[in-house]
């Protein structure tokens, strides 16, 4: 039990995917201009990352390991994730139209979110069991959501403030992210 707690605290705060492991930077910089869209993206990623951790665990233990195909890991995982995203999109469209409309645009983008493939590879590397893998996926994704929502709220303020001309756009955003990451580094004593 304490093991799971460690994974959760580690995933959300200490080893935050965005702030200290640099996974999922593209959506972090790309879809963080508004708080609402940032939150939508975070939720979509959480959903996919939990499912991806679950399915890649089964692929790894019951398919790749018995057949000695560990070197096919990258190809197998990326195909599983691409397929998963597609299935989630179709399923959501049928089950919940409102959720689909809220997340719709972000779903295809998630395939190329390195946090999803990253969590699958990390689960294998760390030798997590089924429960640990899923918990790691969810807490990593919640950490991503926390970071992107905080960043979006800073950027909303930045957009209306007077920045020097050259700082506009990405340079300013990156330096802001750097200062945020500095704050997250403060958690490193927790574990």
């Amino acid at each position, binding site marked *: 039990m304490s093991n799971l707690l460690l994974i959760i605290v580690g995933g959300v705060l200490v080893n935050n995917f965005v702030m200290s492991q*640099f*996974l999922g930077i593209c959506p972090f*910089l790309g879809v963080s201009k508004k708080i609402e869209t940032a939150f939508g993206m975070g939720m979509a990623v959480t959903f996919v990352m939990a499912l991806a951790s679950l399915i890649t665990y089964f692929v790894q233990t019951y398919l790749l390991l018995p057949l000695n195909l560990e070197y096919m890991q990258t190809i197998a995982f990326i195909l599983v994730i691409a397929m998963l995203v597609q299935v989630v999109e179709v399923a959501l469209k049928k089950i919940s139209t409102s959720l689909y409309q809220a997340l719709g645009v972000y779903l295809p983008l998630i395939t190329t979110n390195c946090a999803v*493939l990253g969590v699958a*590879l990390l689960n294998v590397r760390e030798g997590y069991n089924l429960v640990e893998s899923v918990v790691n996926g969810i807490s990593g994704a919640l950490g991503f959501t926390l970071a992107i929502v905080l960043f979006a709220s800073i950027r909303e303020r930045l957009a209306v403030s007077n920045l020097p001309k050259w700082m506009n756009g990405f340079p300013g955003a990156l*330096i802001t992210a750097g200062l945020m990451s*500095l704050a997250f580094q403060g958690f490193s004593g927790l574990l």
Partner: protein
Amino acid sequence: MKNNRLIKVFSNGLLNENPTFRLLLGMCPTLAITKAASSGLGMGLATTFVLVFSNMVVSLLRNIIPEKVRIPSFVVVIATFVTIIDLMIKAFLPALSSTLGIYIPLIVVNCIIFARAESFASKNPVLPSIADGLGMGLGFTLALVMLSSVREIIGTGCWFGMQIMPEGYQPMAIATSPSGGFIFLGLLLLVVNAFVQYTERRKAEKEEEIL
């Protein structure tokens, strides 16, 4: 004439459309592995390898792959070459493999490779596609080496592991910490932006003078 076009395509990726500085693609590895110049160089060259070969294969298959399944097909092609380079680095450069860790398999989801396959290789013949892959890859390598050199020199006083700062230099640990990655990339982009704006203004002034 034909050579001119190849050179143009090649230098386009290196400078005008540099994937890191101008297009802002492939940010995850850019930030994650630029603590030391040697890992920046290793990552850049590994990505270049994948880019050149995936561009080549995608371009060769561009008339065979049906429009509807092109994205999964590109993914399989890219993942194949990533697996090859992953195994090669593990076999021949175990030290590099342990520093880069999961970021080598993560080359699969580097948007630069996908973007070039989709927007260039799937529409152009083989030779220009290879030139484009090489130019983009080396442009990415150049950016990674620049960023990682700055971070390594400021953060540790060394460059490629050799001491180059004077004895009394106090290393600033922030440069090699995660937050340093964001801050120094931001500063580097700022310098590049300022330089581009300056050269464009100079060009406009010159044109005015001629008129």
